């Protein structure tokens, strides 16, 4: 026989303040849980979205980031003539050689004052066809031969002098912002792009940092990688573009995730102790009721289940409130330095339905763990003493 849920619901309402406080404590833990994982997810997502599985990123042999790589024009020529490279509509190889420099720019606004390492990427006109998901949302592409730059959408909001027509100074020169672009929410939106022939001399670079090309046959990546890495004329490493950037999110992404779990774990222990207190007090006050239930014939198992359900209800209520508290954080833009690439990355907090569900499940677990021992005490209650 199961004790009806209405008994639990009514009991909860009999001690409204106690129930509310316990639920609120759990709500805060769930809110922090969801918030921090949303931060970690957002960071990861920005990098995972960067790059297409159809492209291959080529760096110098041994380099672990675009920053530490160097590729000369000879290598670019050899790569362009490779049979693995797809050709565009005009018959030219879809190859994008790029320069990569990091400059310190002061951040603006209430977020923080301080410096950020912003990526300045030298690009060729080919980049707009090779790299995926690019969209110029304002202005026009930089014209060849002029010190003009295109700024990523996320970058524009967080730094001064990045509006269309404004002038930004770096590398000892003045650059005019002529466009803003989006890139599917990826890391490129935190970058400044300019023409190779303008950017490289400004930073005294004679070599590119990376070459990205479109695979002729997406399935033939392994073969292309093997061919390029064993080619004696080159000394390169090839990566699937999407995989490379995803892997750059590993270090900080796992730190953020570990931090989230550790912090919420400790908080959860504290909240569970609170829940245990509440439930023990509830069991103690209601021992005559429990005795009546047992006398009526409800098996101790049902009493155990009933109290567990009560604890779970409190926790779930807290979980829902916590999820609601955390929800506004979704879509908030923040930024940090991705140490793997030593560059500024702006990203949004990302709350997925899956994350909300895990938050609720977490609350449920807290409720069950907190309610177990008190519920067992209730079930084991000797009837006669209680009725006395």
């Amino acid at each position, binding site marked *: 026989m199961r004790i009806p849920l209405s008994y639990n619901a009514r009991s909860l309402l009999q001690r409204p*303040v*106690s129930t509310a*406080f*316990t639920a*609120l*404590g759990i709500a*805060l*833990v769930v*809110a*922090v849980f969801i918030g*921090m994982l949303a*931060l970690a997810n957002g960071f990861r997502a920005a990098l995972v979205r960067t790059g297409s599985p159809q492209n291959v990123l080529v760096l*110098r*042999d*041994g*380099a*672990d*980031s675009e*920053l*530490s790589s160097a590729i000369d024009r000879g290598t670019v020529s050899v790569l362009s003539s490779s049979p693995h490279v797809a050709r565009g509509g005009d018959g030219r190889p879809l190859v994008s050689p790029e320069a990569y*420099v*990091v*400059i*310190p720019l002061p*951040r603006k606004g209430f*977020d*923080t*004052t*301080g*410096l*950020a*390492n912003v990526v300045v990427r030298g690009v060729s006109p080919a980049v707009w066809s090779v790299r995926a998901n690019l969209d110029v949302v304002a202005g026009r592409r930089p014209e060849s031969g002029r010190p003009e730059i295109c700024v990523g959408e996320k970058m524009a909001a967080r730094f001064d002098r990045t509006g269309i027509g404004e002038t930004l100074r*770096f*590398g*000892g020169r003045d650059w005019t912002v002529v466009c803003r672009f989006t890139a599917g929410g990826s890391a490129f939106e935190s970058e400044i792009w300019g023409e190779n022939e303008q950017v490289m001399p*400004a*930073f*005294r670079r004679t070599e590119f940092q990376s070459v990205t090309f479109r695979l002729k046959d997406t399935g033939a990546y392994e073969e292309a990688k093997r061919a390029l890495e064993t080619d004696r004329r080159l*000394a390169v490493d090839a990566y699937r573009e999407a995989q490379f950037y995803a892997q750059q999110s590993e270090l900080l992404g796992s*730190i953020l995730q570990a931090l989230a779990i550790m*912090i919420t774990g*400790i*908080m959860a*222990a*504290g*909240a569970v*102790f*609170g829940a*245990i*207190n*509440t439930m*023990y*007090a509830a069991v103690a006050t209601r021992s005559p009721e429990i005795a009546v239930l047992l006398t009526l014939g409800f098996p101790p198992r049902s009493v155990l289940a009933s109290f567990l359900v009560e604890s779970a209800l409190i926790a779930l209520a807290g979980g829902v409130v916590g999820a609601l508290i955390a929800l506004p954080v979704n879509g908030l833009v*923040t*930024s*940090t*330095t991705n140490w793997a690439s*030593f560059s*500024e990355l702006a990203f949004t907090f990302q709350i997925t339905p899956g994350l909300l569900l895990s938050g609720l499940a977490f609350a449920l677990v807290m409720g069950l763990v907190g309610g177990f021992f008190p519920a067992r005490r209730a079930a084991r209650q000797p009837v006669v003493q209680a009725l006395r």
Partner: protein
Amino acid sequence: MKFFHLVLANLGRHKRRTFLTIASVALALFLFASLQTVVTTLERAAQFGSARRLVMTNASGFILPLPLSYANRLRATEGVSNVTWANWFGGKYGDNKTFFAQFAVDPKSYLEVYPEMVVPEDQKQAFLRERSAALIGVRLLDKFGWRVGQNITLQGTIFPGDWTFTIRGVYTPSDPILNDDMMLFHHEYLEERIGRPGIAGWYVIEIDDADNAAGAAKVMDDQFRNSSAPTKTGTEQAFNASFATMWGNVSLLMGTIGMAVVFAILLVSANAMMMSARERTGEVAVLKTIGFRDRTLFGLVMLEAGFIALAGALIGLGGAKLLYRLTKFNGGGFLPGFDVTPRTLLLGTGIALLLMLASGLVPALRAARLPVVQALRRVE
């Protein structure tokens, strides 16, 4: 205090409840102390640096190099007592699971400019003598199980290839903010292998007059303003501070979580206090009947809340301080000198006391104002 026994007896009545509440408060304050310490450690790192040391980087971006020829010109500049330089090597060791910084430096001048790196004299001489020698931080001995005299091989990323070094010395920082897990080696070793003319990543310049840092910096930048690599010079503190800001708005994040944590424990503790108070209405009435004053009862309840709060503070804050001291935690190298400051301990204790006030106030007032007759009527 003669009422101390009464307070303890009350708390001992529900030992489990008292224990769980204290544990909750302790956990929350432990967390609070840890989060605060992240903020304070980054702040201290931003303030580390000698007032007499200036850091000079390429004005276009500090990842760009500076010519080695600047060294002599800087040495000849008035007000400069010593000049050294370093290059970020960025090598990988083994499976690359553990990161540590490696620098190619001008060994003699670097150790002169950084007396905080304490090296035994014989090891120092051995390091200076040998071109392929390496000087490692004391933490690396444990991290990788290295010994003095051992050969180690790194995979270069910026400078490709395999690089072998012989560990000849170990340094111990005299200031905990200075990282104890870095590796230094000879700049000439780097130069002879890459076969290109030498470059410096950045210069560290020691000046005579610390008060004139800004003026000296300007003089140096003016010197190189129109050359191929214009420079940006500032104090070492400014340089370190800019690194600390690269994390983003850490203090906002930690502060927000800290607030949530504190509020959560407030709820737990207040809940426990309220439950106890509710159960003891009858006793309070009896105590009042035998002559205890309203004021005394108020104080008793507050003392009870205070005991829980302070016990939790002692365990939580004390635990945090001890844990990080004993494990020499440094956040994988990103948070050197991670130590709970006295100010954080004070702040934590203040929060605990506030907790006592907030959670004990309502039950205490209730107890004080309890009308005796009605309360006695309700005794079970």
